[in-house]
């Protein structure tokens, strides 16, 4: 089956720093892929390359068999790729309903239809009092609105960047459930960039590990978790050796 997203040997450097180095990965239909790696591994850069916020120096990005390399962000969204931001970028002066309706407008022309869709998303995410302004929300609600906006664009591929950072364990569980339902009900392929292991391990079908811009390994969560290379990346080589792992 044709993959939804194909990243083909993409390279991106900032000055002398190679943030993403000859990196390739793919995401299949209805698959949840976890993208993990230490800070500075290039995960967010990769997300920015896929969504058009950055242009790759080399390589190709294919979405549904079509090349999207170097397209501007709004065109990539129209094609069916949505994202959330690691540092959330809210619409502080809009209400929850308005903020999510903005996402729906990429698919529908009329405001009434956009509000109808936004209402569905709001009910799905369990957001209360949708007429509150986004500036008055708590962290969890802000993140849900961020997710809701992306969802309202009716994407085929959803890229979620560190949504669980700063959330309590019970809230992480809620987000985990929501991500799974998004995949199951909406048939969306999802890439989860995450540091919070309970989330990424619990939700992913497959995990890709990135370090210093390159792919270290990929596989099922349990395989990756026991991979010596991964352990040494996360815990450092000396610690890895102490645990009896050879680098």
């Amino acid at each position, binding site marked *: 089956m044709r993959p939804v997203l194909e990243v083909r040997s993409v390279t991106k450097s900032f000055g002398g720093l190679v943030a993403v180095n000859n990196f390739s990965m793919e995401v299949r239909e209805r698959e949840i892929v976890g993208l993990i790696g230490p800070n500075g591994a290039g995960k967010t850069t990769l997300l920015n390359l896929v969504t058009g*916020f950055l242009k790759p120096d080399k390589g190709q990005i294919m979405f549904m068999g079509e090349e999207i390399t170097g397209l501007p962000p709004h065109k990539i969204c129209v094609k069916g790729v*949505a994202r959330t931001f690691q540092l959330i*970028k809210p619409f502080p002066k809009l209400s929850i309903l308005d*903020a999510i309706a903005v996402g729906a407008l990429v698919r529908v022309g009329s*405001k009434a239809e956009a509000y109808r869709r936004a209402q569905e998303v709001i009910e799905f995410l369990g957001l209360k009092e949708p007429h509150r302004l986004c500036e008055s929300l708590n962290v969890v609600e802000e993140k849900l609105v961020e997710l809701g906006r*992306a969802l309202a664009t009716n994407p085929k591929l959803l890229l979620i960047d560190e949504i669980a950072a700063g959330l309590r364990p019970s809230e992480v569980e809620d987000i985990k459930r929501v991500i799974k339902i998004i995949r199951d009900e909406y048939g969306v392929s999802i890439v989860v960039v995450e540091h919070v292991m309970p989330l990424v391990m619990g939700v992913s079908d497959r995990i890709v590990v990135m370090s210093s811009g390159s792919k270290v390994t990929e596989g099922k969560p349990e395989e990756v978790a026991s991979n010596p290379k991964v352990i040494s990346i996360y815990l450092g080589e000396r610690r890895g050796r102490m645990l009896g792992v050879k680098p």
Partner: protein
Amino acid sequence: MFKLSLSQKNVPVLLAVVLLFVLPLIIRQEYWIYVMTIGFYYAILASTWNVMAGFLGRVSFAHAAFAAIGAYASALTVLHFGIPPAVGIFIGMAVGTVFSLFIGYLSLRLRGVYFTLSTLAFAEIFRIVVTVEYEYTRGSLGLETPKLIEGMLSYVPYYYVALIMLLGTVFSTYVILNSAFGLKIKAVGNSEEAAEALGINSAKVKVIMFMFTSAITSLAGAFYGHLIGLVSPEIGAFDQLALVIAMAVVGGLGSLPGPVIGALLLEVISEYLREFGIFRLLIFAGLIIVTLRFFRRGIYGALKQVIWRGEL
């Protein structure tokens, strides 16, 4: 698509509109009718400047310059081709729109302050060109232009033309902001990157709105030229821009009635302070500082809080 509901909220607006329509019958002094007409001109400029600054977060320093472009384009075509001023003002509008497309396309795709800097440069270039091209523009002496309504000595008809232009500006802005496109405008104004991630071409939204506001501003400027009968570089001068900004900020940025209230109030105050000349700007600058320090949402924001007790 658009529904007018006579809710509690609309009553003050309706009262204000009715009051403005009957005002010439009440004041009956040509001088104050003239002052109000000029006030409407500034109210149009403050309203359109507010659309870019208050809703899209893009500060234009070429706003007065666009009024001057409209005024010169209209005056020159009327003088050289003998067309009536009533047609000329629309030529002024068209010329202003073309210039705004040019500047907007070049500078609104960039982030940060580049747009503001470009508009500042453009306004200055325009002022210099107009002053230097003496043969066409009569430089800083200014061009004498025919009046909009020939042989009319009273300012009452001008008052109503200006009032209708102002209401048209505010109403069309209201309709745009409450449309689906208006939601996109607000999204871009809140977070450009998030808007782009949600499929909005933010550069396009900004350029369209810059063209819309510049078109109205040029039309107003052209009207102003045919109202006072003299088009000079003064129309596009920096103190005019500063006055417009003061009006929008004091009245209330990011609201529709705010800039109108601010413009009419400051215009009337400015008439009382006429003897201070250019030093009036100091007083207005002080007003801006007081507004930003104590009531950021301006007079309108403060009024709204008092009347509707903070409810929207």
